[in-house]
């Protein structure tokens, strides 16, 4: 094992896949000379050249659209959309083209496309650079949605996403790029649609992903001091969702809190919570509870931004409420 950052884990996944397969290429805004707005693709342009690390015009619809067309004809593009907030510009391409062409055309085509993007609050960038839009994407049958929380998951899941023959929206978190974690020296991948129990416990289950996962682990550590034993489950992939692993945990602990950064109304907490109800209602000793982002555009002010998403203290408080 080696210890590397989250951004480096993603960078290594791209590098290893590009080395292995000449049909893998990267395209997006500022991915080549600049190395990506958050530096994720740095060094790849120098190694692979402009043919395979392609700087594009500021044209999100064409970036995703051309990704689809190249994927349908034999390439494995990894396109970068600098901020998930800009996916609105490319949403028709994702929703109406990438997700649907295989089904609409009777299974006669595949779209092995990865859309790498980045979201979340934490840098006081305000409403157009801080959103968590994953619930938009899980409403689209035909795609997969991946949100890694650790360097290990980030690398293994990205490699698997590139190998997958379906469109994958792979969402990084801007506050995780500098976080560190252990990653194997050898080649590995992580299957999509498989949750990971990040911490074992018996009193309550927290389901969380991306940055909220780290905050949930921090909360669990503090709660342990007070004798509360928290199990933390990271779905890692939101679509398809590994409700089996989540249910197994809930059946054991009988209580569950779902934590996410996206707006509460119609958010991932609603979906995960409902699936828990459908799968293990009889095992619950308390209602399913969710902690999510405030239903507001992300405000700039650091004070307001902090209030708009659940933090460690919010999680601790909510767990204690549930346990009575």
């Amino acid at each position: 094992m080696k210890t590397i950052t989250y951004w480096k884990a993603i960078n290594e996944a791209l590098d290893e896949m590009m080395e292995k397969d000449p049909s893998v290429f990267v395209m997006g805004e500022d991915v080549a000379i600049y190395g990506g707005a958050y530096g994720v693709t740095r060094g790849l342009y120098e190694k692979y050249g402009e043919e395979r690390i392609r700087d594009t015009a500021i044209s999100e619809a064409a970036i995703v659209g051309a990704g689809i067309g190249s994927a349908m004809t034999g390439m494995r593009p990894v396109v970068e959309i600098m901020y998930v907030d800009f996916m609105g510009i490319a949403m028709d391409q994702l929703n109406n083209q990438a997700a649907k062409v295989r089904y609409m055309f009777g299974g006669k085509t595949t779209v092995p496309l990865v859309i790498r993007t980045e979201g979340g609050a934490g840098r006081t960038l305000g409403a157009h650079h801080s959103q968590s839009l994953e619930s938009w994407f899980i409403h689209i049958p035909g795609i997969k949605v991946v949100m890694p929380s650790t360097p290990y998951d980030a690398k293994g899941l990205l490699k698997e996403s590139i190998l997958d023959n379906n469109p994958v929206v792979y969402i990084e978190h801007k506050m995780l790029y500098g976080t560190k974690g252990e990653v194997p020296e050898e080649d590995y991948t992580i299957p999509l649609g498989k949750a990971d129990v990040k911490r074992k416990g018996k009193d309550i289950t927290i389901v969380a992903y991306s940055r909220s996962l780290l905050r949930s682990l921090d909360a669990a550590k503090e709660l342990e001091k007070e004798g509360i034993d928290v199990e933390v489950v990271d779905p890692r992939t939101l679509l398809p969702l590994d409700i089996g692993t989540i249910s197994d945990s809930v059946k054991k602990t009988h209580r569950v809190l779902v934590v996410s950064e996206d707006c509460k109304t119609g958010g991932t907490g609603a979906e995960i919570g409902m699936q828990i109800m459908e799968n293990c209602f009889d095992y619950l000793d308390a209602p399913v509870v969710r902690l999510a982002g405030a239903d507001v555009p992300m405000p700039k002010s650091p004070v307001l931004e902090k209030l708009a998403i659940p933090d460690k203290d919010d999680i601790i408080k909510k767990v204690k409420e549930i346990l009575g």
Partner: protein
Amino acid sequence: MSDIKITKDEAVFYLKQMMQIRQFEDKIMDLLGQNVAEGGSHLYAGEEAIAVGAMAAIKKDDLITSTHRGHGHCVAKGGELPVLMAEILGKQTGCCKGKGGSLHLADVSTGNLGANGVVGGGFGIAAGAGLTLKMKKTGQVVLCFFGDGAINQGIFHESANMAGKWKLPVVYICENNMYGMSVSVERASAVTDLGKRAAAYDIPSETVDGMDVLAVREAVDKWVDYSRGGKGPSMVVCNTYRYYGHSRSDPRAYRTREEEKEWRDRDCIKVFGRKCVDNKILTQKQVDGIEKEVAGEIEAAVKFAVDSPYPAPEELFEDLYS
């Protein structure tokens, strides 16, 4: 009499394909009226010379992207009439197993990357396909069909810029039928000479009579050579007219019956058939014989489609993921 220089085989092939498309579309109009076909359909009747002429200029392994008015592209790209008709009726035997229908009629196995229910939906896909062909140096080209309405979509500009900058082998085929549903080019577009839109991205263009199959073939042939040769994208604007309304429910209040008659007088099938006879390439009897033969094919296609089963319930979740 205008001279045309083509072989008899070519004449028969073009005439037959145009008749296949025309009769296919007329038949669908009937089937919609009889409620045998449900839903809607955007018919290609009147525009046949473009699909047939353009496809005559490319190779079998070249690719196309199509539109919501795409039945003609499917036929000309080599789709089989029975499976296309079955698809329009939503049958299991259709080219998309009954999941696409008229709006998404495409047999991908023929190199058709899709009709599109979204106006301009093919632009991004065409650029991406062009990128593959360029990166893999296959020597193929992509024909990207679209209408005068689609050229006002943002994705046209984003992808034309990309294709222009990267010199992708994409030939844009603009089917200018003068109306985006009800709104005329004059009422919708700040620039009515649509070739100027290509010029903005340093893409050369040529405007041709889209009612003349040989004019379309000649122009597309020239620009396919250009784009195949690595010089980048090009555009052919084909002026044409759709005979039916935008869809079945369209009363066509935005255009006059006189205008419709003027275009029908220049009908691509009638005029081409007459030229073939005048130039002694075909006899009138041969022309009539082709029309009759096609009628038989259409009847057989309808019978196949009507007799085919609907998809089984378990098909609902098939083909979503690979």
